[in-house]
């Protein structure tokens, strides 16, 4: 199987973050190819479309199509942004790409900037990621010194400036327009769409934004062809994808595997469950995606279409595994707390609703649940979904509603017996 072969290919090499290691393993050949061969911007976007690469930040929007939305022939600055505000519980892949493969990200961004005519870019990295920030900043310095960034790149007349922007602590900045607000020095609160970033983005200028893993997939797609990448995965679900497998497995970690790998194989790669444990439930794409019963997951393949058929979403590929030692109510209460904490406060259904869901979950978990509480959670959830500017609130509703559907008897046990069905022991 083709494992850890694209965005994490060099992870095991010493000093894999250095330019010399990256160029020594074929790095920056895609950049040379597009600038010196040369490839026309439309050709590059064509290869991206052929690859069927879909946005790795969670929404899964086709990257080539997104790139084609950037307006042509406009005067003034166009911006290219990288979303490195990784913070959805269960997601820890972009941090490793930045720590081990910063140049792959940078090269992907330069190729993208050339394809879309962007002259300035920012990599928005969450502020807590001090180590990745330092590594990416050092890599940018190396790339400038080598003439891959700045004025007149490789003597072709193409210029692109790229900077790191440090966040200051807010999950919501992973929402693309909130990120732009933060970059403008404001509170990170999402904007109404439309207008979309391609027409009105950073500073009101045409802007394209992609996730770290998305950009890091670009150099190989350009160097080896869109078809090559597509064939690694399956139709409409091209390429490989990093799955962050966390929770109750023996070898949690980032596994980059072909799209369409059966979940049970992924679980095995992650060391399987702890001895004597049975699979209870999985959150396949980060806490904003619906929980899936363990038995269902064992029959599912890991790609956008299959996970969506199973009633959830691939999200950012953040696979949270729960075994039979887990109290679902206690776990979902903890997840609900995250959304209460991270609501930006702009839309009433989210600002009030995320706290409401948590308070009801909290009293259920603490033996104060009422008969009507399950219906209340479902009602509140239904009144939140689709009524806010961004997707944060929908993401906060999903784990609550899906877990009630799957584990209703466990919720009812809490109400009737005033305690957990399963006592979670100290680990």
């Amino acid at each position, binding site marked *: 199987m083709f494992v850890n072969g694209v965005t994490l290919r060099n992870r095991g090499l010493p000093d894999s973050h250095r330019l010399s290691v990256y160029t020594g393993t074929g790095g920056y050949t895609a950049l040379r190819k597009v600038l010196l061969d040369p490839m026309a911007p439309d050709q590059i976007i064509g290869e991206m479309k052929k690859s069927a690469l879909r946005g790795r930040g969670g929404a899964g929007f086709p990257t080539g199509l997104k790139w084609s939305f950037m307006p042509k022939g406009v005067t003034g600055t166009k911006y290219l942004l990288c979303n490195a505000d990784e913070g959805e*519980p269960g997601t*820890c892949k972009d941090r490793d790409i930045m720590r081990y493969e910063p140049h792959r990200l940078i090269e992907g961004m330069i190729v993208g900037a050339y394809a879309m005519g962007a002259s300035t870019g920012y990599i928005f990295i969450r502020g807590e990621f001090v180590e990745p920030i330092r590594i990416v900043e050092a890599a940018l310095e190396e790339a400038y010194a080598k003439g891959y960034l700045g004025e007149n790149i490789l003597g072709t007349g193409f210029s692109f400036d790229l900077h790191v922007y440090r966040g200051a602590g807010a999950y919501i900045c992973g929402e693309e327009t909130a990120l732009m607000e933060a970059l*403008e020095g404001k509170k990170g609160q999402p904007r109404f769409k439309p207008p979309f970033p391609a027409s009105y983005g950073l500073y009101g200028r045409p802007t394209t934004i992609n996730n770290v893993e998305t950009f890091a997939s670009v150099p190989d797609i350009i160097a080896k062809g869109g078809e090559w990448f597509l064939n690694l995965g399956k139709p409409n679900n091209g390429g490989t994808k990093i799955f962050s497998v966390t929770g109750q497995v023996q070898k949690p970690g980032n596994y980059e595997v072909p799209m369409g790998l059966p979940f049970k194989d992924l679980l095995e790669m992650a060391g399987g469950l702890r001895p004597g444990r049975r699979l209870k439930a999985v959150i396949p794409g980060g806490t904003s995606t619906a929980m899936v019963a363990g038995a269902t997951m064992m029959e599912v393949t890991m790609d956008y279409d299959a996970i969506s058929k199973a009633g959830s979403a691939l999200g950012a590929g953040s696979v949270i595994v729960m075994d039979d030692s887990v109290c679902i109510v206690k776990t979902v209460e903890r997840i609900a707390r995250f959304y209460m904490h991270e609501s930006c406060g702009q839309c009433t259904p989210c600002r009030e609703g995320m706290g409401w869901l948590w308070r009801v979950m909290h009293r259920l978990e603490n033996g104060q649940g009422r008969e009507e509480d399950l219906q209340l959670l479902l009602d509140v959830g239904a009144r939140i979904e689709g009524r806010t500017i961004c997707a944060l609130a929908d993401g906060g509703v999903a784990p609550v509603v899906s877990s009630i559907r799957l584990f209703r008897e466990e919720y009812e046990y809490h109400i009737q017996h005033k305690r957990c069905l399963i006592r979670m022991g100290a680990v």
Partner: protein
Amino acid sequence: MLSEKSLAEIARERTKYPSDQARSALLAALRIAQEEHGYLSEALMDYVADLLGLPAIQVYEVATFYTMYDLKPVGRHKLCVCGSVSCFLNGSDAVLAHLSDRLGVGLGETTADGVFTLQEVECLGACKDAPMMQVDDRYYENLTPESLDALLAQLRGGSDDVR
């Protein structure tokens, strides 16, 4: 209110953005100011506002929105324990209880000697190495009672290694 070094750093940040977008340097300016003074007092926020030519309210709303800004004094080392789901599933509550017990403080409190502030935070993006916490600029992962005790001893000994 800020040293030459901090001012130079803020000036360098401003060059990343168009000249009419000084506000883009605000998050960085607040971080740099906090690094020098330990926390953001109202006077310090007003100073940053003047420095960037912004109304003070624009500075206050940013300083109160983002979690990394401290509006009150904190200990020399902030222990930020992740309590989100992957860490929770791997015993983050036990990590918090252990630290609280060893330090004799509760959540959000600072030890009497001013060395440690204990906090629980949401996901820090290191879920595969749960449970984990951030101490100042560094992540500490796969925490155990033994590794926590060793770290506390090291920090108490005045090691600046974590900075």
